[in-house]
């Protein structure tokens, strides 16, 4: 069920982000979602991409350090309280959220929220029980 996310190590300096996105674009890889965490010196660029294999190949060729992680994707309707509901489910079940980011789907009436948790299967089960639609890879590819 989980979504495969690509995380790339970047130097925290002018042009680093530009460089990675250019590398991916040149290989015909579309970036569906992107988030950055950074310290003073370096950053982690996290992405959901259209073609993971092509992205990995081009990053390797360009000597980038990356890792692929499975994350949970959940569709959250664009209504007040919908996101709060997701967070409540996590906290009530003591699920620690490492990071979260979101992106819009094609329909614009819901967002796809990416959650990084320790136990993907459990989180997905709880979200579905809570009435949320868990997004899988094929769904992302159709967005």
């Amino acid at each position, binding site marked *: 069920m989980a979504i495969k996310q690509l995380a790339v190590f970047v*130097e925290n300096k002018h042009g680093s982000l530009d460089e990675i996105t250019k590398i991916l674009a040149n290989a015909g890889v579309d970036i569906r979602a992107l988030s950055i965490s950074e310290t003073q010196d370096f950053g982690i660029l996290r992405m959901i991409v259209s073609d993971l294999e092509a992205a990995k190949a081009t990053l390797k060729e360009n000597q980038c*350090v990356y*890792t692929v992680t499975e994350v949970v994707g959940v569709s959250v309707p664009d209504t007040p309280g919908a996101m709060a509901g997701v967070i409540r489910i996590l906290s009530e079940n003591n699920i620690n959220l490492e*990071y979260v980011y979101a992106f819009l789907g094609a329909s614009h009436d819901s967002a796809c929220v990416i959650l990084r948790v320790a136990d993907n299967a459990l989180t997905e089960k709880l979200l579905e029980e809570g009435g949320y639609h868990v997004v899988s890879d094929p769904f992302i590819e159709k967005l």
Partner: protein
Amino acid sequence: MEKYWQKEIETASRDEIVAIQNKRLKETVRRVYDNVEHYRKKMDEIGIKPEDINSIDDLHKLPFSYKQDLRDTYPYGMFAVPMKDVVRLHASSGTTGKQIVVGYTKNDLDVWADICARQLYAVGADENDMVHVSYGYGLFTGGFGLHGGAERIGATIIPVSSGNTNRQVTILKDFRSTVLCCTPSYAMFIGETLKQMGIDKSELCLKAGIFGAEPWTDEMRQQIEDLLGLKAYDIYGLTEIMGPGVSYGCNMQDGMHVNEDHFIIEVIDPDTGEVLPDGEQGEIVFTTLTKEAFPIIRYRTRDIGVVTRGKCECGRTFAKMSKPRGRTDDMLIIRGVNVFPSQIETVLIRCGYTANYQIIVDRVNNLDTVEVKVEMTDEAFTDSMAELTKRERTLHEEMKSLLGISAKVTLVPPRSIERSIGKAVRTIDKRKLI
């Protein structure tokens, strides 16, 4: 079955080795006194005559030789034979200061080939091997040294010299090299290039690597072995003494056997000049016993190491010196604490990073600061910032317990630290200490 190039001497008893050394030392001292003004003057100054030196126990009475002496007598002042008997010259650029030049007679080259042949046999190479030499050929002794040894054992030599790393990899693969000779940092570089070119180490035929000319750690040995799929061995030498092959690593991968029939090793306290007992760490000092063109007495190598005696499991009886821990001139004194780059390297590799690093020492407001730049690796990377900063903190703490002060650890992208085809530049010291 262990194979020896010159079994009789390589497995001789301590008494036999000492007897050879006593005899050859006396001859050497007589020869330098008679033929080299520099030594005659230095010995006369302290009232020592060649007849005062009767055995290796008298060696400590002789004055040390320093790199500066070689510079002062540049170019040929330390040569002990007429130039017509010198058949080869080599030079050391000396990363700092004026170059020095050394000479070899035909017999010197003969000895050199033999000691390098001992090295090759000790790592299991013989006439069936393809010896790929990626040390630079030229005035630097690296290339020609092992070349001579490989020729002596009848191996097939591939004299690639250094540089053009993609081509090195292609040759390793296509020519089916079995033994690789280069600096350890270049071996790392070749290994990374292999990965980058998408060639698996199993496509190579390498079985052994002979790496030297710069200090490196056992942790780095492991990385090189993993990258290239070979067993990595040490070789030690320096231009002033002979070139590579002064000491040679054996199958035990634990220290290097000193060719004691040609060189005497001493370990001294670098500050007092006092000879230290076996097992104690100090500066390594060499005296040549058979060199004709360029004999040298008690040469201060500035390499820091330990010497031990006793039979090695490989059967060789020559004294063993440890991998040099560093050089007295590489030693960083950071707020009064002595640190070698190799110690920092050990910590980095233990924490999952590579031996690609750079140490930048500076002085800010009269306090020493250290920054260690280290390249991120696939192994050390994770998508979690919490985990990544935790790992960075562990590294930081390990550094702190080693250095006694906080070092700034900077993680940089792979291959952003400049690679070297010869000796790596590990340290940039920006302090103005004059």
